[in-house]
């Protein structure tokens, strides 16, 4: 996470003249107003709506979600999508970020373009492209048949395989870029120093490089998890009705069946997950030495 220099903020507080503190508050004021009126207040209002029943305060909407198997499956499906997508993008993205940091010239340009360019293609178009790639007579199945990995087409479209592949594809740049931003700044002389002091390469990597890369990992994991746990377009286009999540329940409650209490409760649960991620990633980011 990107934070103000800790030492500066802490040591300086007493010494900073009131005039400067007031100037800082004035500079921050416009953004603060946006945060309060267009973010905190609307979310707090939605949260309060989720506790509203026919006769005042009620936990009925939460009971409808957490109290039955279907409701709990919504929560579980959201969490599972978030967890699996985060795990896959971390396993691929962590070494890839190092590969990007080590690359030079044309290869580096290609790598960077492969991370930036997909951000410009609409999620809708990319998800649709995956339905072409993964369908029974699509490119992936043709390749598997050609390589004799399988002797008849594997049904992937509208299965969880297609959902996970699509989600990993769409969220991978959000894992690689934050890790790269941190890894690129690690001084290569540190591993050389560790080697000079007698550390074998693997232990130098595990004890010097990995700890230094952790702030990037925390940022990437927080970002990918929060994006994928609440993803709406990806599961809708790749699995449709077969994979219902909290996000699809929210959309349905507000856009189709007009059940604002249920939608607000589903929203509040997703919001709580988001808040946990925000707080945890800040704590962990600071603990792992993030600025």
């Amino acid at each position: 996470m990107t934070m103000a220099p800790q030492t500066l903020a802490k040591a300086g507080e007493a010494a900073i003249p009131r005039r400067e503190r007031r100037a800082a508050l004035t500079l921050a004021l416009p953004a603060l107003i946006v945060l309060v009126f267009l973010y905190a207040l609307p979310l707090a209002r939605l949260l309060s709506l989720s506790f509203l029943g026919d006769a005042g305060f009620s936990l009925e909407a939460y009971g409808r979600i957490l109290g039955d198997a279907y409701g709990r499956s919504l929560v579980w499906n959201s969490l599972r999508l978030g967890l699996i997508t985060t795990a896959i993008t971390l396993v691929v993205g962590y070494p890839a970020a190092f590969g990007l940091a080590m690359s030079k010239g044309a290869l580096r340009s290609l790598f960077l373009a492969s991370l930036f360019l997909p951000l410009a293609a609409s999620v809708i178009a990319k998800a649709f492209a995956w339905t072409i790639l993964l369908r029974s007579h699509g490119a992936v199945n043709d390749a598997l048949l050609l390589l004799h990995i399988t002797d008849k087409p594997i049904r992937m479209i509208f299965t969880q395989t297609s959902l996970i592949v699509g989600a990993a594809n769409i969220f991978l740049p959000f894992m690689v870029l934050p890790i790269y931003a941190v890894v690129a700044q690690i001084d290569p002389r540190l591993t050389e120093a560790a080697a000079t002091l007698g550390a074998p390469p693997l232990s130098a990597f595990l004890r010097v490089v990995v700890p230094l890369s952790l702030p990037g990992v925390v940022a990437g994991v927080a970002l990918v998890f929060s994006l994928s746990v609440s993803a709406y377009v990806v599961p809708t286009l790749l699995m449709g009705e077969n994979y219902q999540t909290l996000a699809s329940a929210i959309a349905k409650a507000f856009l189709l069946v007009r059940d604002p209490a249920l939608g607000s409760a589903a929203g509040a649960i997703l919001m709580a997950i988001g808040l946990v991620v925000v707080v945890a990633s800040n704590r962990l980011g600071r603990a792992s030495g993030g600025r």
Partner: protein
Amino acid sequence: MTGAAFRVFAMGAMLGAAVFLLAPLAIIAAASFSPTPVFDLPVGGASLRWYAAVGSLDGFWPALTLSLEIALLSTAVSLVLGTLAGIAIARGAMPGAQSFAAALTSPLMMPGLVLGIALLQFFRSVGLTQAWPSLALAHVVVTLPFVARTMIAALSRFDFTLLDAARTLGSSFPAALVRVMAPALAPAYLTAGLFAFLASMDNYPVSIFLTDARTKTLPIKMLQYIEESPDPSIAALSTLILLATLALLLVADRAVGLHRLAGLAE
């Protein structure tokens, strides 16, 4: 694992990731040349008919114009707000700077649909019912965290005493800002602006609650097209957007270097 082996492994992972990331884009580009009205890989010849069809898609131009207006305006507003807040945080003179920084970047981790409904209900409660201003205000919240992340990082690294040095050497304060601070922060502005703009252009979950029958943004129109008639005109449109972005990236690479942009994308 030795250094050389790790190098090969890491580069291999990135190469695999690059192929994986570019695969759907290649499919989109290929499908855009399809001679048949099916969104699929072209078989038996190529055709440009879907590029010609893009312009005559029902409601396409208003949707594109609306998305561009909202994205440009909200990105510009966020750049101003994010820079001012970033200076307040980076100078360390603000009480609660850390929490404020965390709050500024947190909308990125909040579910878009939830933010969309919350804003819809809030705007209704204060009597704001027009789609255009609702979208513009909402997209400031969508774009602000992208700007805040990058600008706080960049401003924390910026040496503010350089401004004092420039003034000691006879430069006026505005001149010092333009000639010392602006060049140092140019890559950060480019990164922040690019990410914020793209996030706004592709936003579906927040916008879906704030549009009305006549005011629809491009992603909402696109999902509607795909559900109604999934023909390759969507692929042609996406390919055109990709080409425009590719041109933008080439310019950015020439101007400051893509790796510097990526280095700021934390």
